[in-house]
């Protein structure tokens, strides 16, 4: 019998309270009538019967509650729409933020057993992390025991002459051990063998799935076919799986590394990226300490080259840059803030609604509805609202995620960021349920505790003092959260403006850029390159409207690297950040084309050729670092294996983009290069300054390049202004999103203040009426309402400012020098908060002033 009572707990409490006794009675008789052998059958039957019937009763109640909810919401469509929109905004923002953060921070890398994959960087005091040299890599690999596999790669770009236009594509070079370390198999075909990876071996290539589909129509007969890359024949040995994006999303194909025999000669030739797989059971910390021992050994062995050189082991996927990590955290935190505000707001709305319905609920209690039944009813209501909002929110997120995908660092080996999969949906669903319960259950319980007969008394004032405290607390929390968001957004906005206001050191208006990377070995000789460049530049300069044209190794901001050590006079060759500069080769006219001022001396010239003295043009900061308050012209320094003479000084430019400080710059004449050396630095980026519409010149420029070399691909056509803008683009997107979040929060908080005050005014209209009848001035009544609003705002703003200060502190790395306690931002945010309060107060105050004493009292 006790077992039966226990089973009855499957029924809803309201049903149990009503019928449990009777049901037990019925069951007792049945038990009495049943013979002992038939008992097991009876119990089995009863068990399933209770299971089925209890589910049916639950379903009945749900149906009833849903019907009731639909009716209640139809009666107050304004409320329903507001609630759904508020939830949709909150959940949409969070789903979008989550799907981004998930891609960048949470999701495991798409390789088998990704936790064991690590990158190994070389470290040098004062330099941070950098790529190791092949020589050091070889020793690391031979001397360490923590890794079960180790391979390396480097990024490159090649000219592919296939069908149609020649194309410039991003590629990576893999050594034979890299794919086994990643444990990735090709879709079909084979991976690089030791024979493919030898110096002088014939070229072999693995295609990306995308390239295979796009260029070769997904033809499986591609194996063994030959491709022309940079003029050399490569044999296709396989196609990689569709979801293999490594090292970056743009990598189109992979060739065997084929490191030259002399590649191990220079220990300071840092340019390869090693990836290793930890042996099972070995931790990153253990591997790090082993690598420290190995580095110390190498330093003893090569005291000159490996001075202060260490190694750092970093779990792969954890090397998302701290800045993008911080930006994503800020985004997630902001989204959480919006949801919090949305939830409090809804809780408030529901509370008001429940208070208005207090009488109705009291009546229902009085006629026997159990408290559990009412809570259930109200929870159903809030869940329905949350569900509708959640569905709409997911829709909002689907629209916004592609817009946000620029925030996912391109360096991650993942596909498009539009992935809207079950993880994201699950997250959204969980969030929806949580939201529904949070903003629904609390008010429901509160109401039911109070749903007694006092509410039935005629003229009872809805909303006792205690409830107003709760509701005010909710509004205070909203105001605080929105102040935090406003301040954080303001700080980031100021930082963005400051960065965008920085002087890049050159003028971008009317400058068109494009790249013609001349392939090796076709253009290995300096003479052949010079001929091509001069022919193109000569004809481009003749085009109408063109005021300047020149070639450079890499455009500023498009490429920040190319940093070399500098040796001046007595300075010892010590590689440290204090003695490096960015190195570029330029054609004459580069400074004029970018309007970089030549302060003293001259530009590089056509007769700065190999037979003559090596010369250089340096930036102002370079000159003042080595020859402060002296004439730099005619001074000597050693860089890139040659002694060079300074012939000119130009203004500094921001090579590393708007966000970072740049090294001083050094420019060499494009003709002072020996054949087949400094391939990487050959001038390949063309800049054209033109009056008027420079983009209109493009067809003519294409024709000129085609006529110079019909196989030469053209890539990266952009304006210089675009390049400068994209250096702050991800930050700009981020700030725009945060601003949108802050605006939503601001609106919601204003709605919250309005809600509380409107309720106070309407529930006190009798009191206001009495006071007016007794001679209170309208001004005083309005003042009282405004005062109440101001108090709410102040109570929220003070903790909000404190929290905002902390959040600013934690974002300091993103603020580009703006102080986290920036007064202007805080003042603006507080001002907005005041505005928000006023907005929230206006309607209630107006209504309070219009209370008619006679009507208010007659309503009794």
């Amino acid at each position, binding site marked *: 019998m006790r077992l039966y009572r226990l089973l009855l707990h499957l029924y809803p409490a309201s*049903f149990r309270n*009503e019928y449990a*006794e*009777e049901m037990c*009675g*019925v069951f007792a008789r049945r038990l009495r009538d049943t013979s002992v052998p038939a008992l097991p059958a009876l119990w089995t039957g*009863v068990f399933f019967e209770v299971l089925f019937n209890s589910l049916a*009763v639950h379903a*009945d109640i749900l149906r009833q509650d849903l019907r009731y909810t639909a009716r209640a919401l139809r009666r107050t469509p304004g409320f329903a729409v507001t609630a759904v929109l508020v939830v949709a905004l909150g959940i949409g923002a969070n789903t979008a933020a989550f799907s981004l953060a998930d891609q960048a921070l949470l999701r495991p890398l798409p390789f088998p057993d990704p936790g064991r994959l690590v990158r190994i960087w070389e470290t040098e005091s004062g330099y941070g992390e950098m790529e190791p040299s092949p020589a050091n890599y070889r020793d690391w690999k031979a001397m360490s025991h923590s890794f079960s596999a180790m391979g390396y790669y480097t990024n490159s770009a090649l000219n592919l002459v296939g069908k149609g236009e020649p194309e410039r594509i991003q590629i990576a070079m893999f050594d034979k051990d890299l794919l086994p370390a990643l444990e990735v198999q090709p879709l079909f075909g084979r991976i690089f063998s030791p024979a493919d990876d030898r110096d002088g071996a014939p070229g072999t290539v693995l295609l990306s799935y995308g390239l295979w589909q796009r260029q070769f129509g997904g033809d499986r007969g591609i194996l063994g076919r030959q491709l022309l890359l940079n003029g050399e024949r490569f044999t296709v040995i396989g196609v990689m799986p569709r979801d293999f994006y490594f090292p970056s999303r743009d990598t189109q194909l992979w060739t065997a590394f084929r490191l030259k025999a002399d590649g191990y000669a220079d220990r300071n030739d840092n340019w390869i990226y090693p990836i290793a797989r930890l042996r099972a059971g070995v931790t990153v910390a253990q591997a790090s300490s082993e690598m420290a021992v190995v580095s110390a050994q190498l330093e003893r062995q090569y005291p000159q080259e490996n001075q202060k050189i260490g190694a750092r082991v970093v779990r792969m996927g954890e090397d998302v840059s701290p800045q993008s990590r911080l930006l994503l955290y800020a985004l997630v935190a902001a989204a959480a803030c919006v949801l919090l505000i949305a939830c409090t707001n809804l809780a408030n709305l529901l509370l008001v609604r429940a208070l208005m319905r207090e009488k109705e609920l009291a009546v229902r209690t009085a006629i026997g509805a159990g408290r559990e039944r009412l809570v259930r009813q109200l929870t159903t209501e809030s869940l329905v609202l949350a569900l509708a909002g959640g569905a709409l929110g997911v829709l909002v997120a689907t629209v916004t995620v592609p817009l946000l995908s620029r925030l996912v660092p391109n360096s991650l080996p993942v596909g498009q960021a539009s992935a809207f999969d079950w993880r994201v949906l699950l997250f959204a669903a969980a969030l929806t349920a949580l939201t529904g319960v949070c903003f629904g259950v609390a008010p429901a319980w509160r109401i039911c505790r109070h749903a007694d007969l006092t509410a039935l008394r005629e003229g009872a004032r809805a909303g006792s003092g205690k409830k107003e405290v709760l509701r005010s607390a909710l509004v205070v929390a909203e105001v605080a959260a929105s102040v935090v968001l406003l301040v954080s957004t303001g700080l980031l906005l100021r930082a963005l403006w400051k960065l965008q206001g920085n002087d890049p050191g050159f003028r971008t208006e009317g400058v068109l850029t494009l790249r013609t990377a001349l392939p090796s070995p076709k253009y290995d000789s300096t003479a052949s390159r010079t001929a091509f460049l001069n022919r193109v530049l000569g004809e481009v300069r003749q085009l109408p409207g063109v005021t300047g044209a020149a070639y450079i190794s890499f455009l500023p901001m498009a490429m920040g690297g190319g940093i070399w050590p500098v040796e001046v006079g007595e300075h010892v060759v010590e590689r440290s950040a204090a003695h490096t500069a960015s190195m570029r080769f330029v054609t004459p006219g580069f400074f004029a084309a970018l309007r970089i001022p030549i302060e003293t001396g001259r530009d590089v010239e056509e007769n700065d050729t190999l037979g003559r003295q090596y010369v250089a043009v340096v930036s102002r900061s370079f000159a003042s670092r080595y020859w402060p308050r002296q004439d730099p012209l005619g001074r000597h320094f050693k860089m890139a294996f040659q002694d060079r003479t300074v012939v000119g000084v130009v203004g500094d430019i921001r090579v590393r983009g708007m966000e970072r400080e740049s090294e001083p710059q050094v420019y060499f004449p494009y003709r002072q290069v020996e054949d087949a050396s400094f391939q990487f630095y050959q001038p390949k980026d063309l800049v054209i300054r033109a009056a008027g519409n420079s983009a209109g010149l493009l067809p003519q420029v294409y024709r000129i390049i085609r006529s110079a070399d019909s196989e030469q691909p053209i890539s990266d056509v952009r304006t210089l202004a675009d390049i400068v803008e994209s250096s702050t683009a991800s930050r700009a997107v981020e700030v725009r999103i945060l601003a949108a979040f802050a605006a939503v929060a601001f609106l919601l908080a204003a709605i919250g203040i309005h809600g509380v005050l409107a309720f106070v005014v309407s529930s006190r209209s009798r009191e206001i009426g009495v006071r007016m009848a007794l001679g209170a001035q309208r001004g005083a009544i309005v003042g009282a309402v405004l005062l109440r609003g101001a108090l709410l705002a102040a109570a929220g703003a003070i903790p909000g400012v404190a929290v905002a200060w902390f959040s600013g502190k934690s974002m300091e790395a993103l603020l580009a020098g703006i102080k986290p306690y920036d007064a202007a931002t805080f003042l603006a945010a507080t001002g907005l908060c005041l505005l928000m309060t006023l907005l929230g107060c206006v309607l209630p105050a107006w209504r309070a002033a219009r209370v008619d004493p006679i009507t208010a009292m007659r309503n009794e």
Partner: protein
Amino acid sequence: MDPHPASLLPLPSATFYILMALAAEDRHGYAIIQDIEQRTNGALRLSAGTLYRSIQRMLEQGLLVETNDRPAPEFDDERRRYYRITPFGAAVARAEAARLNDLVRMARASGFAPEKA
């Protein structure tokens, strides 16, 4: 206030049986079960869960009411609740019977049922 009787048709069989059990007199739950068992010669024996779930729904639909008229004390059991059919409940039961009757007539015309039951 009650909806049209036809809107509830067809009735779940348990509901129809309960209405029939209450046609002549008010009964408590166990008596309803016994009555149905007798009517069907033991073929249908409602479980407690099915009975009270049906009763709850029928109360909401207005087919039944709980009654406070107790029978003579010697037959009464304090614990028990008695149910009475409402006029609306009777109307619904009549509508259901008519519906079934029509159905049987059609079946007969198709040769699925004997001419006279």
